[in-house]
C-alpha cells in the first residue's frame, strides 16, 4: 500500500493510495484502522488500466502494469494534505566561495554588453 500525491485536487479528508489488486475496500479499511489506528469513514476503489501502447526496440508492444487506486475518506473531521517533498531552497552562495566569484564575474560581463539606457530601447543600428 503506497500513499501517493493525487493528480487532481481531492477533498481535504481524502487520502489517495495505490494498493494491491487483490485488496478490497473492507481490507483497506481494516488494515488502516487496526495496524495504523487511522479512523476511516469510507473507502472507494478503482482499477487503473495500464496502457499497451509503448513499443520496445523490437517493435513489440510493452504493457504498463494495471494497479488499484484507493480513495480513503478519513473520519472524525481529520484532514490530510500531501506534503511538498522537494521544497525550493533559496540559493545564496557564501561570500568568498567559487560560485559567488563566478556569479559576480558573469554579472560584470553582462553589464558590459547592455545597451545604453539613454537610447530608450531603440536598437544600436538605428541612426537618424
Amino acid at each position, binding site marked *: 500500500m503506497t500513499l501517493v500525491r493525487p493528480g*487532481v*485536487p*481531492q*477533498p481535504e*479528508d*481524502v487520502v489517495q493510495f495505490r494498493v494491491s489488486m487483490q485488496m478490497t475496500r473492507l481490507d483497506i479499511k481494516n488494515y488502516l484502522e487496526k495496524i495504523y489506528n487511522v479512523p476511516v*469513514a*469510507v473507502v*472507494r476503489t478503482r482499477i487503473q488500466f495500464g496502457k499497451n501502447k509503448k513499443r520496445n526496440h523490437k517493435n513489440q508492444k510493452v504493457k504498463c502494469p494495471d494497479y488499484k487506486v484507493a480513495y480513503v*475518506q478519513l*473520519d*472524525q473531521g481529520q484532514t490530510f494534505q500531501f506534503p511538498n517533498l522537494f521544497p525550493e531552497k533559496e540559493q545564496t552562495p557564501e561570500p568568498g566561495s567559487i560560485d559567488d566569484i563566478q556569479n559576480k564575474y558573469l554579472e560584470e560581463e553582462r553589464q558590459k554588453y547592455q545597451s545604453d539606457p539613454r537610447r530608450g530601447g531603440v536598437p544600436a543600428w538605428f541612426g537618424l
Partner: protein
Amino acid sequence: MAALRSKWSELCRQIQASSAAAVKAGPGAGPWYPPVVASLTAKSKAAQRRRQELFHQLLHEAGSIEKKLQLYEQRQRRKFVVYPQTFALRADRSYQSFTKTAFVPGLPPASRAPVHLDLGALRSLVCDALLQEYFYLRRPFACSPNPPESLHESFLTQLVTILSGQLAARNPLLATSTLDFQPQVNFYWMRGEEVVRHGHRSGRVDPVRFQIDDRPLLQIRVPKQLPKFVPLDHLVAEEIPVINHTPDKLPMFKRQYENKVFIGSKVADPCRYGHTQFHLIPERLKRKKLIQKNLAHHIEVVYRANGIASLFAWTAAQAMYQGFWSEADVTHPFVSQAVVTDGQYFAFFCYQLNTLALTVEADKNNPRKNICWGTDSKPLYEAVEENNIKGFNDEVLLQLIQFLLNRPKGLQTDRLPLASA
C-alpha cells in the same frame, strides 16, 4: 428548433437593418459609421460573448413564462445530478457551495412565535394516527426490527392531512392550499466554471451544470407567498463553505437528459408558491444503518443535505415560475419550509431564496446569499408499545403546528382566491 432559428435570423436582420438605417439617416450630422461590434459567427471569444448576449436578450424578451422556461431548458449538455438524499460524506457543505446557501442552526424568530392552541385535542388525534398505523392495523411487519417505508409513509400522510384539516380554521391559507402526494420537483442551474478535459472540446471553459430531481413525500402549495424571514440583502454571519475540488470527488456523477424546472404543477396552476414539504429518509440512510457503519455523526448531515438541496430546488423553481432567472435576479425573497423525517425523528428547515444569480458572470458583484435555517432531528415519540405511546414530545408537535400555521400577515378568509379559480 425552427422557431428559434427564425427568431435568431430575425434578430440578425433587425441589427443589420438598424445599422443600415443609421447610415442612411447620417447626412445631416456628418459621417455616420455603423456600430463597431464583434462578429456573430467568428471563432473568437468576443463573438461567443455576443452570441451569449443575444441569447440572454431572447430569454428576456420571451412572450410567456412557458416559452422562457422552454428556451432555458432547451440545450442539453452533460450535467451533475444532485441527489438530496445522498450517502456521500460531508454532502451538506458541498451542496451549500453549489447553491450559494449559508446554513444557520436553529429556526428564524418568526417560526418560534408562541401559539395559543388547544394542544391536547391535536395530540390525541396524532397519537390515534400513530397507534392506528403501528398497532391497530395488525400488519405482520409492523413489529419487525426493519419495518418497510410504506408504514412511515402512511403515518406521515395521516399526520399531515389531520393537522392541516384541523388548522385550516385558524389558517385560511391552508383552506385554499393543494396537498400533493409524491410530486416531482426539478430544478436545473449553472454554477462555476470548469475546463473540458477530454474530447474535441478539450481546453475550453464550460459552466458546471447541475440538476436536482426530487420526489418529496408530501407537499403543500398555496396561492399566496409566505412572508420573508429577513430582508432581501440581509447578510448572515455564517460563511458559505468554499470547495477547491471538482464536484465529482463528492462522489457525484454526470448524465445528459431532459433539463427540467418543475415545482409540482405546471405554470398555469394558481397555487404557485410553496408552503411546506415533507421528506421521508430512505431505509439505507436511517439512523440504525449509519450507526452500524460507525457514522453516527453523519446522521445530521443527511438531514441537512436533504433540507438544503430539496428546498433550494423547490424555491428556485418557484422563482423561475414567476419569470426570474440567473440574469434577471429576484426582486423579493422567496420562502419555503420543509420537514425531513424518518418516521420517528423530525428535523425542521426554513429556506429563503435571495438570489438566483449563480453563474460566473451574474455572480461577479452579487453580495446576496441564500439562507437556510435548520434544527437537529428530535424524536416525536420514544417507542410504540401495545396500545401505548411512550415519551411523546410536545415540542416537535408544536413546531409542526407552527410551520403549518405560517401565513402572510393580514390574511382574511373572504379575500383569498379560490384554488379552483
